[in-house]
């Protein structure tokens, strides 16, 4: 057995590097910045879900004192104003049509926000209203009005190309993902039991505390943007495309970001402020309100139909999944989210014959894009509810049913992908134990289990990092990972400190600036601890090699006889501080060592997604609920979460990520939904849209981590952040089903909907009730 490495900094519950700054209000966010000559932008948004723009007249607005510029479709000549995360289907401001309530129609730049707001109200727009489609059913109905009549819907992103198959041209379907193995129809024929369920997921918003905000400044043909962005390098590429600039002429700086959750990925409001600044040659700040963020990006509503064939002995043998994802008025990341939803729909089970068809559909609603879980949340709600529904119909204990069908460590999820990298039973048994699974629940109470996996770390990711050691032996890390509140900068600094034998207070992180920070694709997909973690570790190791060489030179010995620790080089003749080594080697304090690190996933034609997953993110969850049969209120009494961390780098941040994910999950499971009526969102604000607060936390909440050193990241780490979220909805839904005997297929489980489901089941003939005992599996 390999001797366990002794860690000094990695694994320590170190406080946040920027924690004090943030809690004292000292931390600088984009909205805090005030540049000389800065003016302010406001956006005029469509009041209609679908309309042709007949005429826009901005003359009255332009006469408002302080109004500098009104940007309409008439001002776009000279730039490539069509853009998009994957498909180029979005324009800086509306050109021919508006496609959802909130679609940017025009923008104003003015000396102050008041003047900009006043001018907005004086822009005269004449619309010709068109019939709208506001949900999946309407959008896929034959002869449905088209959200986009024509669209250049092809794109290439990270080892996958995306386009609309010929047979869907002239419909609202803008992407299809298909996967199959074995002979599904024959396997259904052979199955002893076949079950089919359809699940629905509602439209929800990220609700970052900081709404979208950016400042764009054109000076000549150099564009500088300060933005609350999760992927400044992608933003840079998109802006360079819009304005026809080399990447080296677009500079994106990222101050602190007040929450991301995927909502600040790709391109959001930046083209509007950049276009205004392009005309004005002044810094333009565009700070959206919370209500405007609700009208900028959301999670995909989904309809997921799953049909499974089960053998007499309880083995899953066949599955067919049909998934529709509502991407709203513009594709944004929709095709990619749909691809991932489709890919993840099979869950953690061994199913020899499987087929998945996933469709991405345009509707006249707010665009849906990347959102923590990235398609996995919608299908996890479906497949783990379906798992319990099958077990219940067969009278099998859902725990035993899962244990019987789990993929084993080392087994393939699909051919060509990374094998499953942990023992799925280990986590589920921990959850079952914590819930005292076999003990019967009290009346109106129930327990539920859920286990979800997702390919994680992003697909075909690339990350670079630089570590600079200064003459005094302290180090600065340059990383493209954005601190969006997840604590990544602290954890990455711990990796640097661990590798270089430094205490954490000798490591700093430079502000992210695309002009100087090494390239990174994005802060997403739970990738920072693995993809960026490896780049950072390699950069630190590069510094370490150079430092050891310098030390060997100064101390006249071999690098092999030297080790690093406590800020000193330790050799046969004692320990020498790094500062002495560096000044000794360089001959003065004008000294610096620079180390670089790079990580890149590999492409593979054999892998379904074009590249094997970096690692498998696994989340197990167990819930115990009490349901009030009179009011329909679901109270989560206990939630127990297990995540596979591989190696915990910072326990405080890991628990924060996991518990945050659980609270997030409670939101879409019990409370959150954007309510639409006649194409209008009725609750784009935090009064009428319920985000869970601390008082909604289960009284008993615990998250624990498996640490088997099985991750690809530094010291065996995996990524975290999404795994804890994935099982929540199904664990609670399954607990509600066991408490009441009634399964609900549509989220959220609001009191009114639970009450209605209970009332309807009472009227219906004796249906599926929870059996008193489970029969055992052969």
């Amino acid at each position, binding site marked *: 057995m390999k001797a366990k490495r002794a860690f000094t900094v990695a694994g320590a519950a170190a406080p946040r590097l920027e924690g004090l700054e943030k809690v004292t209000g000292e931390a600088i966010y984009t909205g805090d910045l005030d540049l000389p000559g800065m003016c302010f932008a406001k956006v005029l948004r469509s009041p209609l879900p679908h309309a042709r723009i007949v005429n826009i007249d901005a003359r009255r607005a332009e006469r408002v004192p302080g109004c500098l510029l009104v940007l309409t479709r008439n001002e776009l000549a000279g730039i490539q104003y069509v853009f998009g995360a994957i498909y180029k289907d979005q324009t800086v401001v509306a050109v021919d049509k508006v496609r959802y309530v909130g679609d940017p129609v025009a923008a104003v730049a003015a000396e102050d926000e008041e003047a900009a707001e006043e001018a907005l109200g004086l822009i005269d727009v004449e619309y010709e209203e068109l019939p709208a489609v506001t949900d999946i059913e309407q959008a896929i109905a034959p002869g449905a009005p088209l959200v986009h009549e024509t669209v250049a819907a092809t794109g290439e992103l990270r080892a996958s190309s995306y386009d609309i198959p010929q047979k869907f041209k002239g419909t609202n379907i803008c992407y299809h993902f298909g996967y199959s193995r074995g002979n599904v129809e024959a396997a259904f024929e052979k199955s002893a039991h076949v079950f089919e369920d359809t699940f629905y997921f509602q439209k929800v918003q990220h609700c970052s505390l900081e709404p979208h905000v950016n400042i764009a400044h054109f000076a000549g043909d150099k564009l500088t943007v300060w933005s609350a962005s999760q992927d400044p390098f992608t933003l840079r590429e998109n802006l360079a495309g819009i304005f026809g600039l080399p990447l080296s002429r677009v500079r994106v700086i990222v101050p602190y970001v007040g929450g991301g959750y995927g909502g600040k990925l790709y391109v959001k409001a930046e083209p509007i402020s950049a276009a205004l600044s392009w005309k004005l040659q002044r810094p333009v700040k565009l700070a959206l309100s919370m209500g405007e963020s609700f009208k900028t990006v959301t999670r995909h509503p989904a309809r997921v139909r799953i049909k499974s064939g089960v053998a007499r002995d309880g083995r899953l043998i066949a599955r067919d999944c049909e998934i529709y994802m509502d991407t709203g008025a513009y594709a944004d990341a929709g095709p990619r989210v749909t691809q991932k939803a489709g890919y993840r729909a099979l869950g953690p089970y061994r199913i020899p014959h499987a087929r998945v068809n996933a469709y991405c559909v345009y509707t006249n609603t707010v665009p849906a894009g990347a959102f923590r879980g990235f398609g996995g949340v919608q299908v996890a709600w479906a497949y783990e509810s379906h798992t319990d529904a099958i077990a219940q119909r067969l009278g099998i204990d859902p725990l035993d049913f899962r244990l019987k069908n789990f993929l084993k460590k080392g087994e393939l999820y699909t051919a060509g992908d990374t094998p499953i990298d942990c023992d799925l039973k280990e986590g589920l048994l921990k959850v079952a134990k914590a819930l005292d699974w076999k003990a019967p629940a009290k009346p109106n109470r129930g327990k539920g289990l859920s286990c979800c996996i997702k390919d994680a770390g992003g697909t075909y990711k690339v990350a670079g990092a630089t570590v600079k050691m200064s003459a005094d032996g302290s180090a600065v890390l340059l990383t493209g990972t954005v601190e969006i509140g997840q604590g990544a900068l602290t954890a990455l600094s711990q990796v640097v400190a661990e590798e270089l034998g430094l205490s954490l207070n000798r490591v700093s992180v430079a502000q992210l600036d695309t002009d100087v920070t090494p390239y990174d694709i994005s802060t997403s997909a739970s990738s920072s601890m693995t993809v960026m973690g490896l780049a950072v570790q390699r950069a630190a190791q590069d510094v370490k090699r150079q430092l050891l060489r310098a030390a060997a030179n100064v101390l006249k010995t071999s690098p092999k006889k030297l080790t690093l620790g406590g800020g000193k080089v330790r050799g046969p003749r004692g320990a020498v501080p790094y500062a002495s080594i560096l000044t000794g080697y360089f001959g003065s304090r004008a000294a610096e060592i620079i180390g670089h690190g790079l990580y890149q996933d590999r492409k593979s034609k054999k892998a379904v997604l074009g590249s094997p997953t970096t690692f498998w993110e696994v989340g197990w969850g167990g819930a115990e609920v009490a349901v009030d049969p009179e009011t329909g209120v679901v109270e989560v009494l206990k939630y127990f979460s297990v995540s596979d961390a591989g190696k915990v780098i910072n326990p405080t941040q890991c628990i924060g990520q996991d518990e945050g994910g659980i609270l997030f999950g409670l939101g879409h499971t019990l409370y959150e939904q954007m*309510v639409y009526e006649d194409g209008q969102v009725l609750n784009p604000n935090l*009064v*009428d849209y319920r985000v869970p607060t601390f008082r909604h936390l289960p009284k008993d909440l615990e998250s624990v981590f498996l640490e088997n050193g099985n991750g690809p990241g530094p010291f065996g780490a995996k990524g975290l952040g999404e795994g804890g979220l994935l099982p929540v909805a199904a664990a609670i839904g399954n607990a509600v089903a066991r408490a009441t005997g009634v399964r609900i297929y549509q989220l959220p489980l609001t009191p009114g909907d639970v009450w209605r489901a209970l009332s309807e089941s009472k009227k219906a003939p004796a249906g599926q009730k929870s059996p008193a005992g489970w029969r055992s599996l052969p």
Partner: protein
Amino acid sequence: MIRPFRLEEPKTVREAAGLLRRHGDGARVYAGGTELLLAMKERLVRCDRLINIKKISALDRLELEDGTLRIGALATHRRLEESRVLAQCLPAFVAMERAVANVRVRGVGTLGGNLCFAEPHSDPGTLLLVLAATLVAEGQDGRREIPVENFFLGPFETALGGDEILTEIKIPVPPPGSSAAYIKFGYLERPSVGVALFLALDDAAEGITSARVAVGSAGPQPKRVFEAEALLQGVGVTEAGRRIDQAGEAAARAAEAVSDIHGAADYKEHLIRVLLKRALARVIEDCQKQTR
């Protein structure tokens, strides 16, 4: 964003009433601002002038006088939930105040402002209906008392005249052997349904001598339910238990529940029946505890 407005800061009620009369619909009274400023930001309310009445002295007093609690209209929810006098005389009122919105709203929001804004999804009005409260209004032509039953005319609409300001809320201290409860239900920030019940029992704590029932939030305005009161008044507590479903039906009808993001009308009606039943059990238990 809030449009520019002029801020007036009168020192007396009379002065404030004069400003209201002079500026008509272009002026609004500003107290805590928790509802008004939100509505102005959303452009649901447009006014050129805010009349800040917080500079008027003695509008936030809170005192017990001859068996009547006199609460100044500017008393904040926070002040009321922390008041010892209230906790002693009107524990149900304190319990209601403790659960109004959230702590930030309670810190600045006032009881008077809450009543005058007359947002249907709100708590205090419903409870005041069963506590037989009287509201004191002052305008340029003098001062008058409005029984709370006559105060709410509809959503965002009250019986206050154009130049009148609500100055005081008077609540008679309930006699021993009586109790009240307010039970609300909701999963969003604002309540979906609120039910209030007041009962006075006879000396043996077995017969109901007086009953008042009110419902709120579900429909356009909080309402007394006289039909339900008639069913409960003058009967024994056991009989009241038998009649509570019927009383609940009456309350559900009286609420004029509407379907909105807070719930479907039929669900709200169902909740009213459930909550009234729960309120009855709670109030009777509390009354009987007092006699024991």
